């Protein structure tokens, strides 16, 4: 008898069931329960009347700076403004979907490739955002590498207002609807990295980015 069978047998015996494998009927019952996708109690602020205001408020709480533009065409200009004001070089590695924007016009050197160690700034989009917690959700795919949001010290994230949802449950529902099941990485980002492991003193900027800047597109 292998370890798997031993473990399952012990569990089943402890709960008054025989054998070392759940029956088809038991599995069907469990799958039925799972398929209901029961949602638990949600706090009132999870359904704020002004969703974007709630998103911005939570960004403030966690240290994600944010700016609002009216279209993707305005993104390079906002990026140039943010990087100069922050004292950073006008250069970044970005997701290829943004390669066609007017980067030269804004004076920003855009490289459409996954970020490497040594890249100071990474630009990504997101699958959707969650207003309840000021979170952006990035899904891994060939053209949306996770490293671009993780390795650089500064992470710029483009968020379309129409893709800002109320709750994580809404995000999962949208994921099921548009993608089917979660990809290798479903990366929920809520602010720059931090640690408080030394004397419980919060330090912003641990292993992940020091800065996260959300660029909201609100037509």
């Amino acid at each position, binding site marked *: 008898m292998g370890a798997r069978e031993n473990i399952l047998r012990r569990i089943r015996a402890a709960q008054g069931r025989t054998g070392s494998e759940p029956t088809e009927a038991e599995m069907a019952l*469990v799958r039925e329960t799972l398929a209901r996708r029961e949602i638990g109690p949600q*706090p009132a602020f999870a359904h704020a009347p002004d969703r974007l205001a709630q998103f911005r408020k939570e960004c403030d709480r966690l240290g994600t700076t944010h700016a609002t533009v009216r279209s993707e065409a305005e993104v390079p200009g906002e990026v140039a403004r943010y990087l100069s004001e922050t004292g950073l070089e006008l250069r970044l590695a970005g997701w290829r979907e943004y390669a066609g924007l007017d980067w030269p016009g804004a004076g920003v050197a855009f490289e459409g490739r996954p970020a490497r160690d040594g890249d100071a700034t990474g630009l990504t989009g997101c699958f959707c955002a969650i207003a309840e917690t000021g979170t952006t959700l990035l899904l891994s795919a060939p053209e949306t590498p996770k490293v671009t949001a993780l390795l650089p010290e500064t992470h710029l994230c483009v968020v379309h207002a129409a893709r800002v949802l109320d709750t994580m449950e809404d995000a999962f529902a949208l994921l099921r609807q548009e993608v089917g099941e979660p990809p*290798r*990485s479903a990366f929920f980002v809520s602010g720059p990295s931090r640690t408080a492991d030394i004397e*419980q003193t919060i330090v912003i900027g*641990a292993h992940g980015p020091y800065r996260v800047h959300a660029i909201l597109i609100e037509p």
Partner: protein
Amino acid sequence: MLVQSMHFKQRASEKLGDALLQGNMRKAKGKFVDGRAKAVAEFGVWEELRTHAAKIRDRAIANLDAYLVEFERNATRRGAVVHWAESAEDACRIIVEIALQNGVKKVAKSKSMVSEEVNLNERMEAAGLQVIETDLGEYILQLAHEPPSHIVAPAVHKSKEQVADLFVAAHGKPRLTEIPAMTREAREALRGHFLTADMGISGSNFIIAETGTTLTVTNEGNADMVTTLPRIHCVITGIEKVIGTMEDFAALIRLLPRSAIGQTITNYLTVTTGIKMPDEADGPEQMHIVLVDAGRTRLVGSDMQEMLRCIRCGACMNHCPVYQNVGGHAYGWVYPGPMGSILTPAYVGLENAGDLPNAATFCGECAVACPVKIPLPDLMRKLREQQFDRKLRPWTERAAIAAWGFVATRPGLYALMSKLGARVASWMGGREGLIHSLPGIDGWTKGRDMPAPAGRTFRELYKRRASHRA
């Protein structure tokens, strides 16, 4: 981790005299306890959510075999290899084999309490692998050759001066004095390891049956590095971590960071399913998930089953007056505080950890703070009963409790003994009305005097007053 729980009393005494630890614990308590209280106050439906969370955790445990089989089916379908480990030794053997079979030289680890349980680092190093802890707290402890003293803030017992000394010895750079600079130095020291590790090992805060997903709840970004950059990703986790759906995760994640450190959400939720697809830019080529039993199946169907609901938030220890004063190392194993007082006896034997369930005043703070409503004081009391039945306590204690039981179940005798006791204690107080030393338990009066009782029992006084009125 080596079991030292049998030395609890001695270690607790030492820790009470450790001024540095006392200061660190005071600071941590303020942050964790106040942080949680504020987050809970803002939430609104906190109690309802606790009830829901307890329900979904219980449902998973009641169907543990089916949930695990469903998890295995989905994880395998997505390209992960699922391994089952009955014991600590099995878990280590499986992971070391994976490493050696794949020519792994360097392993980068994000935090995993299960890996502490099974002594994974030691076993990997014995097999010739270089193991780097990447969570800052665990990294500090790795340099100090010390075990963690808290499940969320492992280096809570260390001061910044101690950390600065460790960094000087390890990094060979000039000694730092400020915490942000130290954090930066650690970031730079570890960045190189992330990029060159052959294998990343992570724990998993939960595993999701419906999708075959493993996930981490972190602030630092190291778990993301460890699960994205190396070519092999290995997850080690306890079998009780399985939950049903992504919606169950969404519910539990509202409780976990708030209960642990008063945050609404952690900076990163790394929800990982399967291996990287052929045309994907980043991610591991291989994923191994090691499901560890190591005593958990003994809790299923037992008196202690509710303990399996635990989501490892640390709220119980943060609120425990005993833990707050002696810290985590006194408990002598991986899990300190109230949850440790239940899990340690369960996993290493009640005879090896007997003092732990007794290191409680049953104030109930832990039960109130627990996000999944584990009745921690009740479980500790059951362990005390088990100890009494198995004669595991010193004979003096057993005799005293037996004597108390004898008297307490005989009302006439009880009334007589308490009348006697009230008169004797009153006489002992003398003219000052203060008892300076209690025979047999003089530890209690070493630093304080006990006010002497009035000399008559409550029932005598009540009767007297009632008859005056009549």
